[in-house]
């Protein structure tokens, strides 16, 4: 079952095309990252799915059905900013969320415990720090233990410990079989927790699918010697290599996943009169792949 199906969604603000015909599907059980630089349309897309913004064109489905208000109640969402009544406490705010979702209030203590706000549960929201506000918003999304969670930049405003806690929370939610849709501009965040990804840039969908497929995890072999110019000439004759690039005084050879043979490379260089001072295998990193996709 697809949790979310986005079909050809566009959004125009006057002459600006914030989204241009976006289509993808979020399978059940995925941790689905929507990745893109600031201003790429991530929040706009999620806002349309949450009926906060109206799409100019296109449609979307939730749980394989035409989206309705009732279906939205089955999704826990943190969209863009923590949105709460400033003069009310955490508990009073969460009571409102429960009432709108039509669920009991028994879960409130639990979620406040999960996001570590139990001690401040009766303080007005206006007295919270940025990180506490963000944690309350994550807590509100967890109310009623929904099967699907939507997190827009969930680690915004959190300190390193908070960031790590939220990542662990997302992983544990995923382990319980929940589907998580997460927008982020932090590659590292997506790399660490996501199983699937959609990449947006200036309103265009550049790629979508499983992380393995999209990032096509190549093997990268890094080499260096005292004479890199000669080394590069020699490497041009090596077999099975897809590309050769000079990066920061080192030469990077790219291979399809699993076929790089370090011993063979070392021997090839040595046989051609070059002694390597550096030889290292590394997986292609998200960052370089992301830059490759978005540039």
């Amino acid at each position, binding site marked *: 079952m697809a949790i979310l199906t986005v079909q050809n969604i566009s959004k125009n603000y006057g002459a600006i095309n914030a989204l241009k015909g976006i289509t993808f599907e979020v399978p059940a059980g995925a941790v689905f990252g929507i990745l893109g630089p600031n201003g790429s349309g991530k929040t706009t897309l999620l806002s349309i799915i949450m*009926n906060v913004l*109206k799409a100019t064109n296109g449609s979307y489905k939730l749980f394989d059905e035409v989206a309705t208000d009732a279906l939205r109640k089955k999704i826990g969402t943190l969209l863009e900013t923590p949105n*709460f009544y400033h003069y009310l406490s955490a508990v009073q705010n969460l009571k409102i969320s429960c009432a709108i979702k039509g669920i009991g209030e028994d879960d409130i203590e639990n979620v406040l415990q999960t996001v570590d706000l139990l001690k401040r549960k009766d303080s007005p929201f206006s007295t919270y720090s940025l990180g506490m506000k963000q944690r309350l918003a994550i807590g509100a999304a967890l109310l009623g233990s929904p099967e699907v969670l939507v997190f827009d930049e969930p680690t915004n405003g959190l300190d390193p410990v908070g960031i790590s806690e939220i990542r662990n929370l997302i992983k544990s939610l995923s382990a319980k079989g929940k589907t998580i849709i997460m927008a982020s501009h932090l590659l590292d965040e997506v790399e660490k927790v996501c199983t699937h990804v959609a990449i947006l840039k200036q309103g265009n969908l550049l790629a979508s699918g499983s992380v393995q497929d999209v990032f096509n995890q190549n093997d990268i072999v890094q080499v260096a010697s005292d004479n890199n110019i000669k080394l590069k000439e020699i490497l041009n004759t090596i077999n099975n290599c897809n590309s050769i690039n000079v990066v920061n005084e080192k030469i990077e050879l790219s291979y399809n996943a699993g076929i790089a043979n370090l011993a063979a490379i070392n021997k090839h260089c040595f046989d051609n009169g070059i002694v390597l001072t550096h030889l290292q295998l590394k997986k292609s990193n998200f960052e370089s792949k992301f830059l490759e996709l978005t540039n």
Partner: protein
Amino acid sequence: MINLLKIEWLKIKNYGAFKIMAIFFAVGVVLANYIVFSVNKNVIGESEAGMLLSSYSPYNFDNTWQTTSYASGYLLLLPAMLIIILVTNEYTFRTNRQNVIDGWSREQFITVKLAIALIVAIVSTIIVILTAMGFGFTSNTNFSTSGFSHVGFFFLKALTYNLFAVLISVLIKKTGFAIGVYFIYIGIENVLAQALDTFGKKITKTIDLGTIGDYLPMNAADGLLTFPDNPIKGLIKNVLPTSYFWAVLGFTIFYILLFFWWSRKKYMTSDL
């Protein structure tokens, strides 16, 4: 609907500004009427003309409904301001988005706000009824419901002011700016209506239908409320345009429906 109102109550019952405005309005209604009551008693009542008419008081039964409605009408800006604050707060806190994200339809969100405008108008009217009765009994006259229709006009004026507050709020979204626009609009409309009354042409020559100024939204609602006719002619101006009363009433109801429809349409079709 009851469920929606319960949720709305969770939002406002702990809101300080709500309590303050509610108290200000209730106390204000009593105080404003007390001022009119004592001015009438001490100044007019003790003048020579007043002596001759010692049995007359604007707060005698019959008159008290009209007088209280008229005097209290000037305080309707307070509940209207409260409504602007309640609606624009949702935009400031972005909770209008969150309510929809959590599963309300846009229609539910705007409908409950319009219902609040209606309830505030009803509660304001009840306060006016109680005040009118209080002053009526203080004047030692026998209870009578004659003239009670003026309380109905007060209700229509309250509803006009409150629904206009909802409309301005969903159009402007920012609290301070919305309150500013609300007051400035009322000011401009008054000046315009005055100018049209002074310089404008009567709508018809055969029957008195006033000028176009009398049919502008706020002026139409204001025009429904007047001070009771006084036997001492000239002391208090009768501002009720009785000859075209029905036309003004019709326009008021039209504006109420217009504000209601426009607010809903705006909220349900635009980005939040």
